[in-house]
């Protein structure tokens, strides 16, 4: 039976909540220590690799002698859940109050982010994870971060990951690692690939702790509770031979979205045709086109679709600048296809903009058969153009789409 812990965490009223001083910890219920004693991760970001695959990235400065790695907590939660838990996106969870005493309510939060089958908010993959010693009701600070079971003992293999060379936090997997803690340091930016596949369209939130002293001490939480709504991703598609007066139309995004949800994103056809697109086109969301021999390759959108260029990102959706700089697409505000200009820096339907290599664009689109959709009806879909060249009289383009499962979700 799944259940949730209903005790609400009132952050601002932390002094009035029960506070419990912890004198010492053990691996089953570690002591939360100050950030002076163990630096906590900061600037937690999430990279959406598409189709439920994500990376977490954070910054660290862990020189502590007994530093061992990081524990990652995640849960499938709505904004309403976060409010109920007392969590604010982008802010940390305080395990200790100003006096250094444990915040009891934080234990409730951890229970709701526990990687345990009985937790209704748990990440995918908890079916074989039923360690009896970690009862949610015990509300331990350990409350099971994301992990694998150790093959030999069927116990949780923690910490979640251990930093290795190259800025990678390596999942500990199912085998206990014998690395000496004193040999582990972590400086700068760290990346961790979550082994599980997340559900598309459902918000998932994460935070991270540093761990030391054989798991007996944990840091304060990462400075951010970071959230993402995973998107569908199409395979990288290459279209070639776009010659003068021709174009390649992408499928209507609504159709593509439905196909992604049903059977996985299909391969995108790359048929070249001469059919032009305009502000009243209803069977295509966007197309690549080349008007004349010496023209560049351009984008143009159909009815109720607009484009905004986010500029140059050499490494596409995983580019550090994209992950660090771009929080979300600008919201459409008062969409009007007949206005002199569109708000937020978007093009107007039917307008052409030049397609450039290594650029990311967001395409806001609503149902093409609706005369004037409401702003909330727009989907914010992303396209990364990894190649765009017109070496002679024809153009080639390679691109990948990230499609939002839900409308009105402009988040990256």
């Amino acid at each position, binding site marked *: 039976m799944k259940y949730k812990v209903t005790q609400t965490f009132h952050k601002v009223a932390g002094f009035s909540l029960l506070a419990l001083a912890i004198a010492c910890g053990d691996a089953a219920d570690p002591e939360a220590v100050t950030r002076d004693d163990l630096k906590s991760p900061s600037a937690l970001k999430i990279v959406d690799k598409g189709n439920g695959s994500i990376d977490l990235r954070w910054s660290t400065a862990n020189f502590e002698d007994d530093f061992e790695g990081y524990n990652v907590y995640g849960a499938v939660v709505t904004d309403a859940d976060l409010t109920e838990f007392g969590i604010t996106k982008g802010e940390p969870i305080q395990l200790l109050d100003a006096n250094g005493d444990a915040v009891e309510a934080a234990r409730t939060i951890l229970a709701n982010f526990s990687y345990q089958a009985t937790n209704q908010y748990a990440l995918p993959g908890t079916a074989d994870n039923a360690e009896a010693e970690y009862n949610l009701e015990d509300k331990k600070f350990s409350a099971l971060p994301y992990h694998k079971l150790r093959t030999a003992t069927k116990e949780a293999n923690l910490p979640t990951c251990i930093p290795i060379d190259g800025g990678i936090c390596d999942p500990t997997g199912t085998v206990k690692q014998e690395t000496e803690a004193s040999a582990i340091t972590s400086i700068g930016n760290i990346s961790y690939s979550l082994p599980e596949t997340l559900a598309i369209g459902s918000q998932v939130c994460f935070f991270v702790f540093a761990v030391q002293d054989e798991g007996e001490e944990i840091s304060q939480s990462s400075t951010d509770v970071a959230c993402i709504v995973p998107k569908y991703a199409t395979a990288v598609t290459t279209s070639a031979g776009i010659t003068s007066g021709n174009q390649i139309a992408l499928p209507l995004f609504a159709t593509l979205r439905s196909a992604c949800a049903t059977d996985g994103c299909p391969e995108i056809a790359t048929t070249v045709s001469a059919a032009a697109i305009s502000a009243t086109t209803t069977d295509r969301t966007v197309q690549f086109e080349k008007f*004349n021999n010496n023209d*560049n390759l351009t984008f143009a959108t159909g009815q109720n679709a607009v484009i905004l260029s986010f500029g140059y990102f050499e490494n596409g959706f995983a580019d550090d600048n994209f992950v660090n700089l771009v929080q979300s697409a600008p919201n459409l505000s008062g969409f009007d296809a007949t206005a002199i200009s569109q708000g937020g820096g978007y093009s107007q339907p039917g307008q052409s903009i030049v397609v450039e290599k290594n650029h990311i664009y967001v395409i806001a689109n609503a149902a093409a058969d609706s005369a004037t959709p409401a702003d909330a009806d727009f989907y914010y879909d992303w396209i990364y153009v990894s190649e765009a060249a017109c070496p002679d009289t024809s153009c080639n383009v390679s691109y990948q789409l990230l499609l939002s499962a839900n409308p009105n979700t402009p988040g990256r």
Partner: protein
Amino acid sequence: MIPTIRTKQLIPTLTFSIVLGLGLSCADGADPDIAERDDLSPPLNLTTVTGSESIELRWNAQNFEDELQGYHVYMIEGKSIANIAADSANLPQYPQDSYNQEATLREASIPRCEDNNSFFGLFGITANTSESCGGGLFVTQATEDTDDGEGTPITAKQVCYDPAAPDTNLGNENISVAKDASSEFKDGEGIQRCLIKGLTNGTDYTFLVVAVLGSDFDEISWSSNLADDTPAPVLLSQDVAYVTSQYQAITLDPVNFTATLGTSTPCPASSLCDVTKANSLTDVPYNIYVARDDGALFPQRLLVSTAATSRIKLLGRGPMTTDPLQAAGTISTRIPGDQAVADGDSYYDSGTVVAVYENSVFDFQITDTNGVARFGKIILHGFSYASTSTDANVTVKTEVVMQTAANNVNYLTEL
């Protein structure tokens, strides 16, 4: 007495074990101890933002120490990191020790990474390379003062010492440690900023930062990496009315560092004012063109381009982003890390005509007749149309900034 160190004197003695054995037991603000990095996290990833007569420093901090006081910023004027490397054979004296003006590096410092040896070489120091160079850190350790330094003294200003007591080098823009008694999450965490004012455009500056601990400022951290920059003047910042079926040229001078706005001119046929056409103008190697779209369908929007024969290439960087580190409501062009793209092949081919929507930023790479490349940005802010008619004039605040230093890809601050 001004302490000085000679390399020849120190090299034989600066082994890690000897340095550790020196141990300063009576540290104070004039001669602080060096805290282990486990006890006092050093600043990480020091970067700069180029301004006009100013440079903003930004670094990542993980400082939660109870007695954290702030950060020392050390600055060398008139030298880039490359200059310092070239000068590393010289052995200057320590500069004068004056609290807010010219200060010494206090005790000597031992760089952690050999890449930065040259900086400390100016202070008569060589590196201990037994530690890794991960994260760009280098360790500072106390060493014994010696005398009779030689060479040219270096000015090292000490700024951003304490935001509660800003000195003349700082403005209100300075953001550093913000202690909050109700939370331990606002010590010295995340990106710290320090705006250095009163600098000279075109002059090179090199910086490093250390964290400072103790009410008497008696402990400092290992140091950050080095960062250098050159303040650059604002070239253009004004509201410009862009008229239907016309264009305006912005002429850059990469030698005298000026940008001149031309007169509004009717669009030539089949060039420049059509997104599907290349800019075919000639003999204008240093011009950026901003035009109204002359197509029948979308005359309201703007287009930007360079001529096919231009020495300037453009690259779209997307919409301006709101920098959460700036004051509320202030838009910054981009945030640190978003430097100019050094690879010229990534820029649009000369002659490419690109559609522009409001709040757009374009990088440009300009190559002078000597083949020297410089980078800059043209920023087109919000569009203000005179009416809802598609042929209405549109007024756009137009800004141009450009690095004066060759090949400098640093982020440029908003004007």
